């Protein structure tokens, strides 16, 4: 018999030196609180525990920006969490257990990690060098208050910014929001719109439907005949309970197709068919599916006539020239290029026959659910991917029906939790797209509407000031999760640009190294909050404080209150409430909207609010489709807009077409740059991390090491073997890391799991494997979003 998998994995393990190096970095003894010492194994066994002490179990929830929002039970003895368990209630289709994934199971290595930041610190070296000296909280607050006042007097309040962040931030009491509240109370600030997760889909989806609320409750998936998960990987991203309900649909006999350049864990376990596709070319395949559906008369004519605008020349808005409808484009009536499966095959690498079959299956097996992930919208023209999915759903009549799916963003709010209000910004709704904050640092006073700036006061074309003050709380987008780390580092290092950088963190992350003042944050285990899942939202969990704040850490709300006091606005900032008071306030506010929302006492008793999905089933746009006369879509035409007049009027028809089109992507397979950098490089959300959180968790590193994924044929062309150290490079930078040669990656594409902590050597060569060493600054055209899966690179053996 050939080598079995057990031998193979053990042989492989030995080769991963970088893994051993990394795990060794967290091998110092942990100190819990000030007196209880435990070993680095967090070992709390009978011999160290007073057996007379009763075990206490507290239900809580990780409020990092993690998609699952699982239920965590912390088992405590003598105030120390000895282990965690998860939901054990009766497990039904209607009310499934909210079981923690691997990340939740590894939390003890997060909050009891010996490497936690312990005391406030002030920078002593150059910016980014990571040299600090310890100071007291009072000294830190004094310094921030003085510098904030000085810089604001010099540059005006619009120079102040609280960065997009989603790390230890919290849920209803978001750290960044609270910083904005404080800025608002002391003159104002520059805000942001968009997110790094879903900028393009959030912007593009409403052009079709008028809203981002296009999701149905997930129980309806069992009523589908076919589910297409397009760039959607709920098993690893932990997208609410999506994996659970897709599994139930599979058990119900529903066929599942996954489209992804990488054979994801979702594809392995849930798919009947996996279709690899070249990144940035999804819309070409969608166009070709539309070609099959239109040319073979498989579209839902009645639905399209009644509910849509822009399908053919007979249903177009006024003042648009002829030949601009979807049908005209797809059949090539104007440009002479019919968007046939053969045309698409050359671009997206999916065989014409496969496209044809899928198009026929999708259009004829109704209802079918085409669910779009956020990966493909994080591309150069991700807006087109979003629009393409929504239009496929519309022309096949899969909108508003149980078992169908409207596609697009897919949000739904079955449970709403009320966040702590951040108050008014005296500067109004002045915002930039969050991805363009580095631009605002360098050339803010040149940035106007064409850069996506919103809310400029009358008579002002550009931002009043460059960004000068950065509060980066609970986040790694200061460098790690932003694009082009080397360029970003240069901007951050220049002290004439940003004059004050305040960072709060749990660990010495790459972003933390760029702080002027670095503050140690506590974790969700040490404070009160309420967690609610990513869309489709189906539950809320009380995130109960389980242990006291460790070391000299504080929650962001606590130290911002200190700063508010120093600036003379404490009462306005807190409104007299502690964090626990705000949780109770939020519950009461939520109860005003939803009387079934539990009281604080009920919440504490049960830990979770999980309404019945069967009794509260939502089908997106059901009423708009059943009774269109009385229920208009929230679009300008009141219908589903296959053709958007608003987009047409932007007059950038090549990059922002009015109907969804495949647009040749920069750094896609059609870019001539591919001659120099022949491999497409994408990132993916790795099961062992939530964005960049947990990268230093040794348990999770063991189950998911940081490796580059590369196809066998691409590897052999370069004489690269499994486990080799390689360099991955393009004109923006270089990474050196180990490779996993695997055919789960399609030829021509390589992938690095995103979120690893940027670790440059003296030459700026990243030694850990952060894909953003190689990603670029150019934003997507409509949303001005981050297109971070749009990269060309070359790979060589070291």
């Amino acid at each position, binding site marked *: 018999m050939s080598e*079995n*998998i*057990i031998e*193979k*994995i*053990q042989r492989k393990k030995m080769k991963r030196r970088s893994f051993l190096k990394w*795990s060794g970095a967290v091998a110092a003894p942990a100190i819990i609180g000030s007196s209880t010492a435990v070993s*680095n*194994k967090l*070992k*709390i*066994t009978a011999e160290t525990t007073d057996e007379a002490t009763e075990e206490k179990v507290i239900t809580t929830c990780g409020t990092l920006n993690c998609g699952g929002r699982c239920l965590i039970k912390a088992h405590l003895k003598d105030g120390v969490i000895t*282990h*965690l*368990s*998860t939901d*054990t209630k009766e*497990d039904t289709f209607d009310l499934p257990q909210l*079981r*923690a*994934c*691997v990340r*939740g*199971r*590894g939390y003890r290595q997060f909050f009891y990690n010996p490497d936690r930041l312990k005391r406030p610190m002030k920078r002593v070296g150059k910016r980014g060098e990571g040299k600090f000296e310890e100071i007291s909280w009072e000294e830190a607050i004094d310094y921030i208050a003085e510098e904030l006042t000085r810089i604001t007097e010099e540059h005006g309040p619009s120079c102040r910014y609280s960065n997009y962040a989603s790390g230890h931030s919290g849920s209803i009491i978001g750290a960044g929001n609270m910083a904005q509240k404080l800025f608002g109370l002391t003159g104002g600030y520059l805000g942001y719109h968009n997110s790094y997760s879903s900028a393009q889909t959030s912007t593009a989806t409403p052009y079709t439907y008028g809203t981002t609320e296009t999701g149905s409750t997930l129980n309806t998936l069992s009523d589908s005949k076919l589910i297409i998960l397009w760039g959607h990987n709920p*098993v*690893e991203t932990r997208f609410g309970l999506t*994996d659970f309900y897709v*599994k139930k649909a599979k058990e119900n006999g529903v066929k599942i197709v996954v489209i992804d350049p990488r*054979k994801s*864990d979702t594809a*392995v*376990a*849930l798919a009947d068919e*996996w279709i*690899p596709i070249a990144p940035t070319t999804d819309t070409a395949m969608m166009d070709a599916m539309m070609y099959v559906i239109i040319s073979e008369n498989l579209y839902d004519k009645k639905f399209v006539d009644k509910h849509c605008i822009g399908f053919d020349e007979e249903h177009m808005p006024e003042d648009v020239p002829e030949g601009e409808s979807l049908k005209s484009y797809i059949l090539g009536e104007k440009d002479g290029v019919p968007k046939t499966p*053969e045309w698409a*095959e*050359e671009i997206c*690498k*999916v*065989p*014409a026959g*496969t496209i044809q079959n899928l198009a026929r299956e999708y259009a004829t097996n109704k209802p079918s659910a085409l669910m779009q992930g956020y990966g493909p919208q994080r591309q150069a023209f991700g807006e087109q991917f979003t629009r393409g999915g929504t239009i496929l759903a519309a022309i096949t009549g899969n909108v508003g029906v149980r078992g169908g799916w409207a596609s697009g963003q897919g949000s739904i709010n079955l449970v709403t939790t009320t966040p702590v209000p951040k108050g008014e910004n005296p500067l109004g709704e002045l915002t930039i797209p969050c991805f363009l904050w580095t631009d605002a640092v360098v050339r803010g006073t040149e940035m106007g509407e064409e850069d996506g700036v919103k809310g400029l006061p009358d008579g002002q074309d550009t931002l009043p000031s460059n960004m000068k003050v950065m509060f980066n709380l609970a986040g790694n987008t200061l460098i790690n999760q932003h694009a082009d780390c080397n360029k970003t580092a240069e901007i951050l290092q220049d002290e004439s640009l940003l004059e004050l950088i305040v960072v709060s963190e749990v660990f010495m992350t790459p972003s933390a190294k760029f702080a002027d003042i670095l503050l140690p944050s506590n974790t969700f285990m040490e404070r009160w909050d309420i967690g609610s899942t990513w869309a489709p939202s189906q539950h809320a969990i009380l995130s109960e404080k389980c242990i006291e704040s460790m070391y000299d850490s504080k929650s962001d709300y606590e130290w911002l209150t200190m700063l508010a006091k120093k600036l003379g606005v404490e009462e306005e900032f807190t409104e007299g409430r502690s964090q626990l008071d705000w949780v109770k306030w939020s519950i009461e506010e939520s109860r005003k909207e939803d009387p079934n929302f539990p009281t604080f006492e009920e919440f504490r008793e049960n830990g979770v609010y999980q309404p019945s999905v069967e009794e509260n089933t939502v089908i997106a746009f059901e009423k708009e489709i059943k009774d269109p006369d009385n229920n208009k879509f929230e679009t300008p035409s009141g219908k589903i807009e296959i053709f958007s007049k608003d987009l047409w009027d932007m007059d950038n028809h090549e990059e922002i077409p009015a109907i969804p089109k495949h647009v040749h992507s920069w750094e896609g397979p059609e870019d001539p740059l591919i001659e120099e950098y022949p491999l497409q490089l994408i990132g993916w959300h790795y*099961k*062992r991390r939530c964005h960049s959180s947990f990268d230093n968790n*040794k*348990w*999770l*590193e*063991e*189950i*998911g090491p940081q490796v580059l994924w590369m*196809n*066998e*044929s691409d590897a052999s062309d370069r004489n690269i073997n499994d486990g080799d150290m390689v360099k991955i490079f393009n004109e923006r930078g270089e990474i050196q890391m180990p490779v996993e040669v695997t*055919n*789960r990656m*399609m*030829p021509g594409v390589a992938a690095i799991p995103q979120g690893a902590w940027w670790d440059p050597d003296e030459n700026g060569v990243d030694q850990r494997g952060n894909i953003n060493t190689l990603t670029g600054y150019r934003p997507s055209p409509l949303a001005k979003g981050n297109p971070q899966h749009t990269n060309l690179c070359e790979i060589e053996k070291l």
Partner: protein
Amino acid sequence: MVQMGFYINSQLCTGCNACVVACKDKNDLDVGINFRRVYEHTEGGYGKSNQGITQNVQTFFTSISCNHCDEPKCMENCPTTAMYKREEDGVVVIDHDKCVGCRYCEWNCPYGAPQYNEELGKMTKCDTCLDLREAGEEPACVAACPMRAIEFGPIEELREKYGDTADVRGLPSSSITKPNLVINAHKDASK
């Protein structure tokens, strides 16, 4: 004696490793010591169809702990008789008063189940979470699986419900140790 065993629904195993880390958390296991492990197996490759790419890539995961075998090689080859099978439920456990950490059990187990603990100088392994079971709970891995793909119970009942497959691609032959394991093989894993 009612022999206990595990059922793994590999069809649904996503390779997430929640079972592995839940086990580590419950048993305080450091890096390198894994009472439960998840193995990935990938075969197959790509072809061309005109300009397009076709594929026959086959991937599956197998989650394995100790199989509490009928003929445990770890026990047969233990020179100190530290490794033994509990009479009441057939669970294979280690008497740490006898174990000298010679690692013969590790070498002899085809599944890699016994795990050497350097700090203790002794072998350690899955005991099916005896303490949790005594308290009426499931083993940590069973309660952890987000796909509900692991079950634990009397092996005869599991075999009645799910068949008696313990031979899938990549695993050692069940004839070696007669494992108390039932696998619902992934479509890519059938032998």
